[in-house]
């Protein structure tokens, strides 16, 4: 009990005696967390938006003849045998004809005398995101083509290719810049901690000469590291939240949110950032002080 009290008193004393440096260190952690989580937020929203675009991907299978509901059921099962599919809709020649008319707009009178039956019966397949990458889609198209009754398979090949590359590049950039950001913030925070503790080197030496046990010396430093990580990440995430709210409000007028739905970091990710920050600061303090105590 008295031990805890001493440690606590020591911690307060340290903070009071070097609050300037402590404040700067806190700011360092806040800014690091803010910038890291800001980019993380952007990327997670971008990946999500990318996925949404992916939902527009569909394959159209033109069939030799119309299918009865029972045949449709059978066809669906055959398709699903290849892989998961979000949705399949069957388009009758009439529906296709209406679409064409809509496409032609004012000029649709040209179709007036025609019989819709000249257009084929088709199935539109929206694949699950698991098979939404280029190679799988190609295989899928090949598979569909060989189904009995299939005449021709169409999908926006160029579009899929583009989209695939885009997502790949995005992932790549997320990974590289994420690594870079994590390394940088870790380095900066631990370097700042090191420099801060360095200024207290003499004090630590004196404590050792007076016979202070290791836990007596490390205790306050660890508590400070812990508090630094906690408040740094807490305030950083709070700042991010307000920044996020501000951006969202700024864009809420533009009928924009139907397109991208901006989302804040999920609770679990925030918690991971918080824990990571606490660990980094505590561990950084511990390692720095161990190096100092060895001298």
């Amino acid at each position: 009990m008295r031990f805890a009290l001493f440690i606590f008193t020591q911690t307060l004393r340290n903070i009071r005696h070097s609050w300037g440096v402590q404040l700067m260190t806190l700011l360092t952690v806040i800014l690091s967390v803010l910038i890291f989580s800001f980019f993380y937020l952007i990327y997670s929203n971008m990946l999500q938006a990318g996925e949404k675009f992916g939902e527009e991907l569909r394959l159209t299978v033109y069939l030799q003849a119309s299918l009865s509901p029972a045949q449709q059921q059978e066809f669906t099962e055959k398709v699903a045998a290849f892989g998961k599919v979000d949705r399949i809709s069957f388009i009758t020649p009439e529906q296709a004809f209406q679409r064409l008319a809509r496409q032609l707009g004012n000029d649709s009178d040209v179709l007036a005398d025609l019989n819709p039956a000249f257009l084929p019966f088709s199935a539109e397949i929206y694949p699950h995101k698991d098979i939404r990458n280029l190679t799988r889609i190609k295989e899928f198209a090949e598979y569909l083509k060989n189904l009995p009754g299939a005449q021709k398979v169409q999908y926006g090949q160029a579009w899929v290719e583009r989209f695939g590359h885009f997502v790949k590049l995005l992932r790549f950039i997320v990974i590289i810049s994420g690594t870079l950001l994590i390394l940088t913030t870790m380095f900066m925070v631990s370097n700042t901690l090191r420099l801060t503790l360095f200024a207290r080197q003499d004090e630590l030496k004196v404590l050792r000469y007076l016979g202070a046990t290791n836990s007596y010396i490390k205790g306050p430093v660890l508590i400070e590291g812990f508090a630094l990580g906690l408040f740094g990440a807490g305030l950083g995430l709070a700042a991010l939240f307000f920044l996020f709210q501000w951006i969202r409000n700024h864009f809420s007028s533009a009928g924009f949110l139907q397109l991208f739905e901006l989302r804040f970091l999920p609770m679990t990710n925030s918690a991971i950032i918080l824990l990571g920050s606490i660990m980094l600061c505590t561990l950084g303090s511990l390692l720095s002080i161990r190096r100092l105590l060895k001298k």
Partner: protein
Amino acid sequence: MLETLNQPPAAASPALVEVVKVTKIYPPDVVALKNVSLSAAKGELVFLTGPSGAGKTTLLKLLCRQEIPTKGLIEIDGNDLNNLSDNDIQKLRQRIGVAYQDFKLLPRLSVFQNIAMPMEVQFKSPGEIRSRVTELLEKLGIREKQHKPAGKLSRGEQQRVAIARAAASSPLLLLADEPTGNLDAATTGLVMALFQELNDNGSTIIIATHDESIYQGSNHRKFELKQGELF
């Protein structure tokens, strides 16, 4: 706790400090102590003298394990300093008070806090700390400076703070390195009276000094170092 370390009950020898054939070489080539042997009995007060650079401070640093000897054996209260774990060294240091030649005060902490440190490190109760610190401040004539940061005192005042800190936990062994270098005759008197009192209460005291006035005429033993050798 440390008492349990006294496994062989110090073989009838009442020596608290035992230095046997100790050599200390600072790398690469500074021979600070050469084959020095001496001992101090429990409750004894001894002087260590010698010209500047003779090795007085080095010897004291060896006694509190701030440096380790290149060769030779050092025992404090029966504990071989070479064979102590890190934790035991800290325990032992709690029982040794050192007034450093360069004080080693924390300049931003107050005089009171500086003197209280060794007792805080031993988790003494706040009341005990307060009364002991006040007593020492009184005896050394720096009571009115107690709330000033140690860095804002005159050198002589700082020296007294260093001495008070060394004496604070009534240590088993007190090492005072040039304790009166910055003090006038009257203040030197106060310091010596404090040492005498601690000595009377059973502390073993080693004073390194070049100030003849404090050891001349006393009947305490005196070791003289010259260029690292006992003379």
